[in-house]
């Protein structure tokens, strides 16, 4: 022990001619890259060093690879591989750290501590469960179940044909109809989906991207038919095409026309649906594709930058569309890393909107986000354990100040959730909100040395990625050269390798494994496909097909023109939204409208990165 402490104290006294070998001292980490006080140094020598000598630290997981440093000492890292110290004190914060400048107050810049002065005391987060399966009729029943049991908003999951802009009777849809979400072909299906649900009172989020404007148009027409005022309805369309190219891969058209369609919705929304979020810029899928927490944060915020750049190039005012930009993050297992991610996100977005884009409207500068627990973290093995994982992940999102939350069902890895699994997921949110007490105080972990250090590291790391992406000429360019895709694929592989080497432990998967039976899951057969195809046949016989054709031709004409921002508060003449709404009113289908746009824009094939 004295050996160790003398080495350390010599180092601190600076004896350059004989550089002491402190690196292999077990307490050298206390002195590297931080500025410990005299008291902390004394603690390290008198208390820590003997403890380490008596009981050396053991890594969590196998003592190999990333779990050991170059001297063979245990190394601790977040799930993203970021090294974590034993103890955080004031010595970890920047030397000029002070509360006012670095943190501020909730509801005030830079919003690290949250966007509301009262946190959740004035308004709880929205409990918004992502749901959709089989036919619109069956999904409508599940929505009513969720709302009756205290869900406070809806979130629509569409099936793959809908996400890819194909009708249920298209050959590419074979085997996919109603499997991963609800099948929607025409306005008729959308009317069934929201039958008996008051769209002026219920906020609805729709996970739809490449065909977002089509499904949104259907939603607006259903709302109108219900007598709802477009100025009052609120909800969100995901509409985030960039993360599709990066991670989720449900794109139809090439990037440039896709971005144009997104900007069309920004412009339309800012004029006609002031309470509707026209985009949910999503890190969720980037994380699910295997990124680190930092990559999720950086790529998502930079996607936000890219959308603003494109909208400004159209001539739109950032303070008109900016307030309706919303975000969507993952809530993964590493508790503090996740909370730091959300806090850093708000701070960075504030700075970007203020400094990079000169936003004046305070609402443009605040980041509102939805969070969903990490499906990728929920294994098929011992699936009931996922209830515990989801609770902890959801808690991180709440402590990070999320505006709305989806909790995954425990059978996530096996199928779409049964009603029982979906019920437990919703109850988990209610337990956090009503029983744990965490919603009673604003940003209760703020000021934790550990959390504040992680938050600053996240911010710095994200800004470093921003520099690289700026140098590449923006996100669309970066995507075309496969940069974010490669970064994510590398992280994904490294994590999988660590799991296989047991350097990272997943309970029930690579440790504490048992033989077991799979639970009952929801099984969707091909009858939905048959029903949807039959409905389409009847629809095409009933509607005026000439009228549909006329409106699709008008849409194609607008889509082929370059839109310029309208004058006197008018919409760009070539904005596609009014034409899509017209086509929807005539009961043109999702597949027909997307096909019309495919004829104008062509389709995109990615350069595969493995």
């Amino acid at each position, binding site marked *: 022990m004295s050996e160790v402490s003398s080495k350390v104290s010599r180092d601190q006294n600076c004896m350059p001619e004989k550089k002491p070998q402190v690196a292999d001292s077990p307490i050298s980490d206390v002195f590297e890259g931080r500025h410990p006080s005299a008291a902390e140094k004394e603690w390290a020598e008198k208390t820590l060093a003997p403890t380490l000598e008596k009981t050396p630290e053991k890594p969590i997981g196998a003592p190999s690879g990333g779990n050991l440093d170059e001297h063979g000492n245990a190394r601790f890292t977040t799930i993203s591989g970021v090294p974590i110290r034993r103890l955080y004190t004031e010595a970890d914060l920047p030397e000029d750290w002070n509360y006012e400048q670095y943190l501020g107050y909730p509801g005030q810049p830079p919003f690290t501590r949250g966007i509301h002065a009262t946190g959740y005391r004035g308004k709880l987060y929205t409990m918004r469960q992502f749901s959709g399966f089989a036919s619109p009729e069956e999904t409508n029943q599940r929505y009513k179940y969720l709302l009756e049991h205290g869900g406070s908003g809806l979130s629509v999951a569409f099936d*793959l044909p809908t996400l890819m802009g194909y009708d249920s009777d298209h050959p*590419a849809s*074979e*085997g996919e109809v109603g499997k*991963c979400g609800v099948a929607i072909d025409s306005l008729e299906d959308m009317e069934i989906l929201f039958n008996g649900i008051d769209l002026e009172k219920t906020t609805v989020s729709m996970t739809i991207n490449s065909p977002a404007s089509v499904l949104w148009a259907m939603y607006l027409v259903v709302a109108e038919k219900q007598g709802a005022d477009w100025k009052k309805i609120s909800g969100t369309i995901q509409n985030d095409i960039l993360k599709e190219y990066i991670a989720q891969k*449900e794109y139809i058209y090439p990037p440039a026309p896709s971005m144009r369609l997104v900007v069309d919705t920004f412009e339309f929304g800012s004029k006609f649906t002031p309470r509707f979020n026209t985009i949910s810029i999503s890190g969720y899928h980037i994380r699910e594709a295997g990124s680190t927490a930092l990559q999720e944060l950086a790529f998502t915020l930079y996607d936000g930058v890219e959308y603003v750049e494109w909208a400004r190039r159209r001539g739109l005012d950032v303070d008109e569309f900016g307030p309706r930009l919303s975000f969507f993050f993952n809530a993964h297992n590493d508790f503090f890393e996740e909370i730091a991610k959300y806090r850093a996100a708000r701070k960075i977005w504030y700075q970007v909107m203020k400094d990079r884009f000169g936003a004046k409207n305070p609402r443009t500068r605040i980041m509102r986000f939805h969070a969903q627990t990490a499906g990728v973290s929920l294994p098929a093995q011992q699936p009931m354990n996922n209830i515990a994982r989801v609770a902890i992940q959801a808690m991180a999102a709440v402590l990070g100040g999320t505006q709305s939350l989806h909790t995954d069902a425990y059978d996530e890895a096996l199928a779409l959730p049964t009603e029982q699994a979906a019920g437990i997921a919703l109850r988990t949110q209610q337990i956090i909100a009503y029983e744990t007490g965490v919603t009673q105080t604003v940003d209760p972990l703020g000021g934790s040395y550990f959390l504040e250090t992680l938050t600053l590291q996240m911010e710095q790391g994200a800004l470093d990625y921003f520099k690289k992406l700026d140098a590449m000429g923006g996100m669309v360019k970066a995507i075309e050269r496969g940069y974010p895709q490669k970064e994510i694929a590398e992280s994904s592989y490294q994590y999988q390798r660590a799991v296989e080497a047991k350097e990272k432990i997943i309970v029930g998967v690579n440790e504490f494994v048992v033989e077991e039976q799979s639970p009952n899951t929801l099984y969707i057969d091909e009858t939905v496909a048959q029903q949807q195809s039959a409905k389409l046949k009847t629809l095409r016989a009933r509607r005026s097909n000439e009228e549909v054709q006329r409106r699709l031709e008008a849409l194609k004409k607008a889509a082929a023109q370059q839109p310029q921002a309208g004058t006197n508060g008018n919409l760009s003449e070539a904005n596609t939204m009014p034409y899509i709404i017209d086509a929807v009113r005539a009961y043109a289908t999702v597949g027909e409208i997307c096909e019309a746009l495919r004829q104008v824009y062509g389709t995109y094939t990615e350069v*595969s990165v*493995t």
Partner: protein
Amino acid sequence: MKAMTEQKIRVLVAKPGLDGHDRGAKVIARALRDAGMEVIYTGLRQTPEMIVNAALQEDVNVIGLSILSGAHNAIIPRVMDLLKHNKMDDVLVVLGGIIPDQDLASMKNLGVAAIFQPGTAMDNIVQFIRTHVKPHGVPTAG
């Protein structure tokens, strides 16, 4: 079997259907490559015809299909039919992704050699392929 140990095992990793969830397919592609196999990744949204055609062109010993969307009941029978039709019965077909338990038997009956459900270790997949891969009878054109 001697030929197989001398020649690299050639694997086609394919993503059929509309699903874009390719994390698993990419991780597996890299793991098989790290294990010394020659891996060809098809990219997304391949039809059964495209997959079998690629398998034929690339003269692979193994096809690994990744399906998470529930479309396996529509896709696998067509892939297996096309393989038979092209006299490619010696190609080992393995399937990964989300395949419900009630469909496992029908997939095996169609000739799928193994189904790797979520959580399967990469090493198990490598070992399975090494143990079960069949040497090619007659080399294809070229």
